């Protein structure tokens, strides 16, 4: 137990030391591990593996769009299945799982100064249920009829009808079961993250001294715990519609000249439930990215984050607002125009806290000592990409502009920029940043530079032309565009160009995966704190951190996470657990 005498005005310990589970065998140490760091790596590896499936699926789609009619095995049905699985995997099983299950598990206990998550056993269950969800999802590729082709939004009634691939086969059932499992598993982990941040911080670590990474992940987790229930309920109800013949979402409908048994249900109800989850989901992915990028920029520009408190309140504000904007995904669903008015207004209000964040990142860079390391390059790329994607969001948030753009490639370009490319750039930057802590070695710089420039420029070469194609009126989710009037010859060349770029960017990711494996053995020795960063995870006595994270004594926190280049201090960074006062810190009083 920590001593109870107050040191340097730090309040005494309130809680006895955590009882840690000590593994007895290889199995309990590396496989059924209760250590959040191992669970984080398990989450990340699984998410990356399933993410590679989604990457290959996107290649298949680009093959068809860029060179229609060339590849016989991409039937219209297969194309829909690729679209659906690509979207669902990327949003749920990759981004959500990697940010919260991966980075959340690794960074929260280390950054708040805890030995582990508060309930390690439940945390372990969370991963295994997530893995089960992924396996159920993958199994749908091998089920009769293949995976569902309902689109990642799974809109009824088409999702469970004969015309949709997997609608009357196994596909949709396995999809729904997998989502239900994911939500159960996530809830177990999410409760851990929230309680750890709220109740298990170390001495001196106030909420307003937390690194913004923790704030982002914490707020996103709270949102997920409140938003996933809507998806859970929607999945249960659709599963009943499909398996038991209920009519929650199914109106009276005629299929192939035959009246179905369904009747009286509301497809719009599903859309409301789905987007009550779906919109917060965008920010569940974005907020951890916001938090992580703030820390990357501050560390690699050797400067305190500008407007820390505003950054925190902007995260919380965005989190709260994102629960009252969901119907901006439904402008063309035929809802009452006054609803459109309301949801357009709330949507545009979100631009205010978001703009605060962007300005503060830029002002953090202003006159900073910018080191163009690979993580920093990714962080800078995130800012421009996020601004780009955000600006097209202003178009789509307004009802009158959205109606003609709805369901065109413009929408595809928009959300890929803002919630596809942007968060993934942060994930990549974060991996380059924290890899030395996880493995003790740096990732290879040359491969990193190659990976960054191909990914960054390639992403723009893919998605900028897509905006243009969308403005021409080319609809999304069409597998065959040769015979349409909106698709001119030149636009077709553009489509082929996009496809080639998609292959290039995908190839760069394989270089990155190779780098990840190669550097475990051959990377440069990193030492404990290669970036000379202030936060607690860099101050551990061992690298990679041992079971229990910190040595015998938990660290005591004396300052905020952003004491970089403090005037009057000897070093250009002051770790959070360094006692004493140096120079004039900019920590808000």
């Amino acid at each position, binding site marked *: 137990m920590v001593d109870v005498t107050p040191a340097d005005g730090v309040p005494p310990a309130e809680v006895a030391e955590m009882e840690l589970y000590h593994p007895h065998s290889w199995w309990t140490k590396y496989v059924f591990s209760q250590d959040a760091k191992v669970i984080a790596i398990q989450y990340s590896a699984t998410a990356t593996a399933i993410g590679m499936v989604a990457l290959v699926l996107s290649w298949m789609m680009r093959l068809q769009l860029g060179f229609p009619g060339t590849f016989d095995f991409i039937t219209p049905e297969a194309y829909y299945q690729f679209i659906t699985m690509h979207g669902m995997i990327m949003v749920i099983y990759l981004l959500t799982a990697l940010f919260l299950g991966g980075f959340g598990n690794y960074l929260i206990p280390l950054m708040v100064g805890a030995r582990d998550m508060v309930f390690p056993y439940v945390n372990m269950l969370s991963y295994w249920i997530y893995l089960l969800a992924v396996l159920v999802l993958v199994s749908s590729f091998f089920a009769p009829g293949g995976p569902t082709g309902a689109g990642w939004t799974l809109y009824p009634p088409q999702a469970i009808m004969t015309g949709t691939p997997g609608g009357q086969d196994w596909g949709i059932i396995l999809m729904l079961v997998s989502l239900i499992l994911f939500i159960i598993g996530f809830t177990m982990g999410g409760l851990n993250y929230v309680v750890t941040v709220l109740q*298990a911080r170390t001495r001196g670590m106030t909420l307003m001294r937390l690194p913004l990474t923790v704030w982002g992940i914490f707020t996103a987790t709270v949102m997920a715990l409140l938003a*996933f229930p809507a998806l859970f309920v929607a999945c249960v109800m659709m599963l009943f519609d499909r398996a038991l013949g209920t*009519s929650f979402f199914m109106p009276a409908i005629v299929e192939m000249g035959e009246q179905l048994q369904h009747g009286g249900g509301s497809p719009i109800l599903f859309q409301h439930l789905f987007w009550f989850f779906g919109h917060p989901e965008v920010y569940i992915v974005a907020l951890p990215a916001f938090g992580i990028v703030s820390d990357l920029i501050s560390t690699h520009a050797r400067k305190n984050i500008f407007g820390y408190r505003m950054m925190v309140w902007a995260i919380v504000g965005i989190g709260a607002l994102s629960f009252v904007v969901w119907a901006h995904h439904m402008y063309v669903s035929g809802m009452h125009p006054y609803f459109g008015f309301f949801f357009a207004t709330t949507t545009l209000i979100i631009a205010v806290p978001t703009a605060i964040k962007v300005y503060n990142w830029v002002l953090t860079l202003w006159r900073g000592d910018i080191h163009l390391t690979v993580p920093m390059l990714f962080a800078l790329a995130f800012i421009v990409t996020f601004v780009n994607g955000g600006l097209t969001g202003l178009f789509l948030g307004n009802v009158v502009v959205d109606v003609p753009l709805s369901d065109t490639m413009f929408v595809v370009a928009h959300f890929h920029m803002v919630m596809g490319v942007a968060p993934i750039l942060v994930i990549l930057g974060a991996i380059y940043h924290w890899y030395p802590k996880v493995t003790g070695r740096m990732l290879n710089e040359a491969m990193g530079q190659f990976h960054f420039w191909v990914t960054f420029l390639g992403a723009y070469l893919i998605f900028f032309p897509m905006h243009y194609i969308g403005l021409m009126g080319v609809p999304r989710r069409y597998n065959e565009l040769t015979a349409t009037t909106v698709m001119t010859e030149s636009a077709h060349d553009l489509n082929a160009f996009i496809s080639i770029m998609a292959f290039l960017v995908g190839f760069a990711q394989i270089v990155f995966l190779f780098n990840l494996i190669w550097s475990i053995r051959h990377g440069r020795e990193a030492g404990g704190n290669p970036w000379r960063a202030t936060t607690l995870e860099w101050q551990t006595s061992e690298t990679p951190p041992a079971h229990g994270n910190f040595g015998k004594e938990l660290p005591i926190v004396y300052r905020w996470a952003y004491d970089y280049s403090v005037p009057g201090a000897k070093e250009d960074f002051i770790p959070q657990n360094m006692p004493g006062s140096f120079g004039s810190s900019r920590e808000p009083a």
Partner: protein
Amino acid sequence: MADTTVTHTGQAQARPAGLQGVAADWSSDQRAFKNVSWGKAMMWIFLLSDTFVFGCFLLSYMTARMSTRVPWPNPSEVFALHIGGSNIPLILIAIMTFVLISSSGTMAMAVNFGYRHDRRKTAILMLLTAALGATFVGMQAFEWTKLISEGVRPWGNPWGAAQFGSSFFMITGFHGTHVTFGVIFLIIVARKVWRGDYETGRPGFFTSRRGRYEHVEIMGLYWHFVDLVWVFIFAFFYLW
């Protein structure tokens, strides 16, 4: 994690009261909710999430009921029992509600005796709570059987909107599952109390952590929540 409830400071910390106290707690280090253990915090946050699940279920049911153009079966008639020559509306539901609310009372008493380390009374009261919960589930099974024998199915019923049966089986089924899980965990915790695990510090089978009598209270939080949800289901499904 021995006794996270207790403040290990040696001296009581002076804390401002009211709103200022809340602000002081949230701006302090270590814990935002002072004197709330991890387990209790976790249960409260889980219940908040679960509230959203039930909220979505009930809102969806209300949407279906309000938007259907087919008449909704009259709950007073559907849920009536024929006793002593006359139809008594909602009699079974009234008894079920009474049983479940009573079980909240025995649960509260179990928590009280738990903190007094009265193992016998705590265990007996928890088992009584579990028995009342099991009775509730049993009566629900009876109600389901009766409705099914009268022709109610998830996809239709003889009296009106098909969504009646769908919502009924889904919502009461989901709530009944909650009660069933509660009964199972009540029995597990009662066994631990009875055996004296919370006195001897016997490590948990799965978690290898020592339990405390606070587990009875955390169990109680869940149980009261399940009761409270039933009140809403009762009001919105049976009384509407």
